């Protein structure tokens, strides 16, 4: 049995080879233009011309499109519907249902916003799929990020898959004790108590154990630390980061300039 401790998928791809910081910059290099550039079709173009190809470049298209349809699409879709119906203003009325008015302007605005959210969550998803958490952590600490911050980032990235694995074991154990988790809704609600108890308690115990474990390995020591992992940072990475930084700046300037 292999418990997945993060979303990371181990593959050989140009995206996997990039330095973690470069990929982190890439995320913001996608998100900032998507939100800032005043040209209407920017987020849409970014999604189709950059984010989707990146998924293929990283060889994680299967996992990415799976997450996109099951997770990101519903979230963005919900946002779209809410904004389209409730944003006030707009001249060109397309439809009127009860007290709701759908105008062309609100529709367009909602569409762009939904795609922006899509781009944002997508780039984080791609990042997590192609970057091993500990690689990110060692790279960031090497660059001077305090260990405590790095730890918080890693713990956040890892907590969902870890709790998922734990929850599955607990569900199996309680079902073996005759707990019915498969029938009526009210029974399922009642079945939650025996599941949540061990999950919360177990997670707290784990936090303590982890704190002791990392302390035992000199986590708070002030001496310079070495790393087991050699993380490549090629000139290509540096170049990409400057390029992305320039793009972020340009999108910020374009926003100021045109408004």
């Amino acid at each position, binding site marked *: *049995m292999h418990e997945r401790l993060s979303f990371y998928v181990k593959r050989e791809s140009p995206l996997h080879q990039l330095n973690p910081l470069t990929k982190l910059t890439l995320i913001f290099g996608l998100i900032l233009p998507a939100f800032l550039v005043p040209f209407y079709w920017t987020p849409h173009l970014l999604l189709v011309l950059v984010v989707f190809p990146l998924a293929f470049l990283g060889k994680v298209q299967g996992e990415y499109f799976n997450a996109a349809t099951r997770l990101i699409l519903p979230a963005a879709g919900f946002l779209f519907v809410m904004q389209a119906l409730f944003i006030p203003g707009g001249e060109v009325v397309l439809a009127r249902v009860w007290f709701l008015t759908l105008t062309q302007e609100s529709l367009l605005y909602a569409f762009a916003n939904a795609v922006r959210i899509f781009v944002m969550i997508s780039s984080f998803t791609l990042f997590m799929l192609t970057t091993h958490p500990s690689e990110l952590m060692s790279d960031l600490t090497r660059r001077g990020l305090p260990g405590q911050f790095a730890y918080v980032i890693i713990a956040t990235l890892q907590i969902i898959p870890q709790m998922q694995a734990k929850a599955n074991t607990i569900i199996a154990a309680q079902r073996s004790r005759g707990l019915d988790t498969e029938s009526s809704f009210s029974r399922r609600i009642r079945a939650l108590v025996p599941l949540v108890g061990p999950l919360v308690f177990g997670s707290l115990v784990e936090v303590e154990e982890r704190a002791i474990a990392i302390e035992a390995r000199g986590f708070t020591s002030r001496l310079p630390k070495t790393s087991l992992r050699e993380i490549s940072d090629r000139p290509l990475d540096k170049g990409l980061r400057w390029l992305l930084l320039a793009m972020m700046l340009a999108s910020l300037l374009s926003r100021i300039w045109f408004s």
Partner: protein
Amino acid sequence: MNICVENLSFRYPNGVLALQGVSLEIASGEQVAIIGQNGAGKTTLVKHLNGLLQPTEGRVLIGDWDTRKYSVAKLAQRVGYVFQNPDEQLFTKTVAEEIAFGPRNLGYSKERLQTLVEDALQLTQLQAMRSANPYDLSPTWRKMVAIASILAMDTPILIFDEPTTGQDAASVGRLATIIAELKQRGKTVITITHDIDFCAENFGRVIVMGNGQVLLDGSAKEVLGQEAILAQTFVDPPQITRLGLRLGLTEVVCTPQEFLDVFETQCAA
């Protein structure tokens, strides 16, 4: 209640083939130990016995029930499964409540529930701790609570997944007593273990697994003498058995008493 595993294969979603064509029968009231290296397929096999996993190929019968047709909660009437880590199931405020959870799920009458909880408390020697919070107990006793909570379900078949891991001698002794008592009551006991002495001393039948297959299946004497096959799955026979083999005893011995008996008769001869 007989257990019948027919040509069982199982592949995990990630593609790992964990069981390949396992067939075996376990009769009502048998005490069976399953041994073998980590990743041999022991836990995967027993998870099929209460429906936690469904066969990729083949089938598993518990009495007349095909595990594919019954839910885990339903199969819990016939098969009790003690997980390795007690912390993954304990959730109530007192030991007694924790023990009553399983039998209550099975819908037993109030009187029967009472009797079963008392009996489980007594078997595991937890009477004095009945109103303690399970999390205030030491890990050794938490394990006993987990075992008691399954004993109280009064199932004809019981599965223990590595019950001796991390337990002191006193606790292992308690486990041996519990298993002997279950045998007396005609229950089927299936135990996964890496503790080869515990296996030799308490189980009449030993199944050795390696690489998703059954390598050996027979009485402790038949199985534990096969050093070469056991080595394939990184199992050493008990020290006393190895000593017997080195001394060239005519019979395979599994316990110190057996060793003495055989050794004395051979010396006398």
